[in-house]
């Protein structure tokens, strides 16, 4: 998320009329706020904006004028953003050490860094992958994400099977390890990722299988969720119970004179059910009650979580 955020915020630095650091940071904060309001899932964006603002505030003030400082900021920022684009290649290179020949890897959702790592590993090793896909998340995700993982992997020649995410526990024993991307890595050492990662991690733990998350360093986020419901993405509509529509009154069996209006309504309802039955899709409201990301707790580890800033 950092490179796009950087490119979005450079013009702010460049074009701002701010005469002081305080004004500049304030302008950045305001614009970051606007950005956050526009996106449904602000976690990655938050991390990016936070990093950018920290970068601006902690930047060494060496130039004589403020304008000079601003150009220097943008220059250094662009350098960092360009560098950030190479992070995924570095991660792919590092992941190689974890992958053995004939590994069966379970992955989840679509993650660019996981894709890169798998495709990179495919160049040197024989791997096959299982991609867990959830019918619900299919609808949640953008159309282009549907089965994108599967298609990309198959096109590259990696054998790939698609399982439902309800079958994760079933396949876990056949899997060598789980590899997922990340939305953010939080201060507790936990992971925020596409919904379903948490149960995958729990199942992997129960089956004593390694669970790896790939994260670029700009995904580190100063956030400490206490539970799933403490995430910034959680809102009151998620998991809320719908108010049931009033149950339609059962038409009285008068037999003698069926009211035309009732029968018409009945006919309409029947036709509606006929058309909706084969589809069996969640409607937009039902989808909106589902979370898009979940929080995987750090279960066991002994290192200290130390943040680079």
């Amino acid at each position, binding site marked *: 998320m950092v490179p796009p955020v950087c490119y979005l915020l450079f013009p702010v630095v460049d074009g701002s009329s701010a005469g002081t650091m305080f004004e500049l940071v304030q302008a950045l904060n305001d614009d970051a706020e606007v950005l956050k309001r526009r996106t449904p899932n602000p976690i990655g964006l938050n991390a990016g904006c936070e990093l950018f603002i920290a970068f601006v505030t902690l930047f060494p003030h060496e130039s004589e004028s403020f304008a000079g400082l601003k150009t220097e900021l943008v220059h250094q920022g662009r350098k960092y953003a360009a560098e950030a684009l190479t992070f995924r290649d570095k991660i792919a290179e590092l992941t190689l050490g974890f992958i053995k020949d004939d590994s069966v890897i379970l992955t989840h959702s679509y993650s660019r860094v996981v894709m890169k790592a798998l495709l990179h590993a495919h160049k040197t090793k024989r791997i096959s992958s299982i991609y867990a896909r959830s019918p619900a998340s299919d609808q949640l995700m953008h159309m282009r994400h549907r089965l994108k993982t599967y298609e990309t992997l198959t096109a590259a020649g990696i054998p790939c099977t698609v399982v439902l995410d309800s079958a994760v526990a079933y396949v876990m024993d056949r899997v060598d390890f789980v590899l997922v991307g990340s939305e953010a890595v939080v201060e507790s050492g936990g992971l925020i990722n596409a919904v379903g990662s948490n149960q995958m991690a729990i199942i992997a733990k129960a089956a004593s299988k390694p669970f790896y998350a790939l994260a670029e360093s700009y995904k580190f986020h100063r956030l*400490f969720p206490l*539970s799933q419901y*403490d995430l910034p993405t959680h809102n009151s509509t998620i998991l809320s119970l719908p108010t049931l529509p009033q149950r339609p009154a059962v038409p009285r069996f008068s037999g003698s004179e069926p009211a035309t209006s009732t029968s018409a309504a009945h006919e309409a309802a029947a036709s509606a059910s006929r058309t909706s039955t084969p589809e069996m899709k969640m409607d937009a409201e039902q989808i909106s009650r589902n979370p898009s990301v979940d929080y995987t707790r750090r279960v066991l580890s*002994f290192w*200290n*979580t*130390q943040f680079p800033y």
Partner: protein
Amino acid sequence: MAPAATLDVQVQPSNGEPSRTLPKPQKEMTKAERRELQERQRAAKATKQAAVPNGVNGKTANNKKPTEVTQPSNVPAQRKERRASRAADTARPTPAPVNKPLQKVPLVAAADASVEKARGLRIFAHFGLPKPASIAKGEIHPTIVRLALQFSNFKITGANARCIATLTAFKTVIQDYSTPPHTTLSRHLMTHLSPQISHLVAARPMAITMGNAIRQLKLEISGSDIDLPEQDAKNALCSKIDHYIRDRIIMADQVIQETAGSKIKDGDVILTYARSSVVEKVLLDAHTEGRDFSVIIVDSRPMLEGKRLLSILSAAGIQCTYLLLPALGSVINEVSTVLVGAHSIHSNGSVFSRAGTALVAMMAKRHSVPVVVCCETYKFSEGVQLDSFTKNELAPIGDMFSSFPLTKPRDALTLQNRPNLEILNPLYDLTPPSCITAVVTEVGVIPPNSISSIPLALGRLL
């Protein structure tokens, strides 16, 4: 509860004698009979105590001792008699043949008068016992004398309050101090302060917070400029103390209020244990910000500090529930977050806090309720503590904290003078880091096992 404990100890000496004949007949008795025997013994004891008003202390024991010491040969005879009576009991359970009280006070213990004087289980002898303010050694400033009294009487409690009170008192001491000739303030002031500190420690063991603050003060004193006029140097020290209080305690609390307050959501049920000044502020702050939540206050003997928190929170208009520690299990499922304060926090992430906190945290952990500890960074102690047994403090024996307007005199309420009864009230316990979800400090929310990285990140020694 207490009489039963006493009884066990009473029965033991006769049981513990070389001949192990006695347990058998006791086993033969039915439960009801044994119960009856106990009741009788208890009644006998009560009448005896009633006969000696207020004489439940060492005096009675002393009176009794000679007779018992001269009577050891009597014991087997008595036992025989008792056995006979028990045999009879099985036949006709109603009468009460044991008229005389049982042999009291084990002989060994009776001989050792110092044991009675010590009060407190011997394995807990290393715990700091509160002492009445000792006679001052050296020149003790009146402010310190008063503060020591307030500490030992538990008029000032809580890590923050004690630290602030100590530092404020030291400000007065420093202002009233004048450097003797041929010395400098930076060298001599500390020797003037150390008897004051040891006087405070004699009143009540020093809190980690006080230790950290005093260490910082020592550093400031030794670093103060020799060429500065005395009054200026003293003023500088006092302002340093003020800054310490402001930065490390007052402002830290405000930051914690905001951070921890953001973890309270509408409709939450917050559980807290005893009373922590920080938690109190967090809850009040979240309430003034208009968040709609309710609070469960869990409390426990002997200090019942939660009552004060209850009165403050309910006066502010927060929905409160008050319960004692044993009832925790029934409400823990309703709780969304546990919010507790801390006395100090060790570098391995374990939290030293009011006795009972560990229980609450473990219960919450078992039920997957997040446990959040609110703690300023100046409470960090670089040591490691693995249990609450190696270092702890005992609450004063007796009902010092009770505010019940009972008709009985206070002496009658306390159990402290019963022979063979030890009351153990440790003030603190240790919550292992595995039971804590997060620690809220003024530098952010951190997992408990990252505590040790904080001083480093702050770039200073605590």
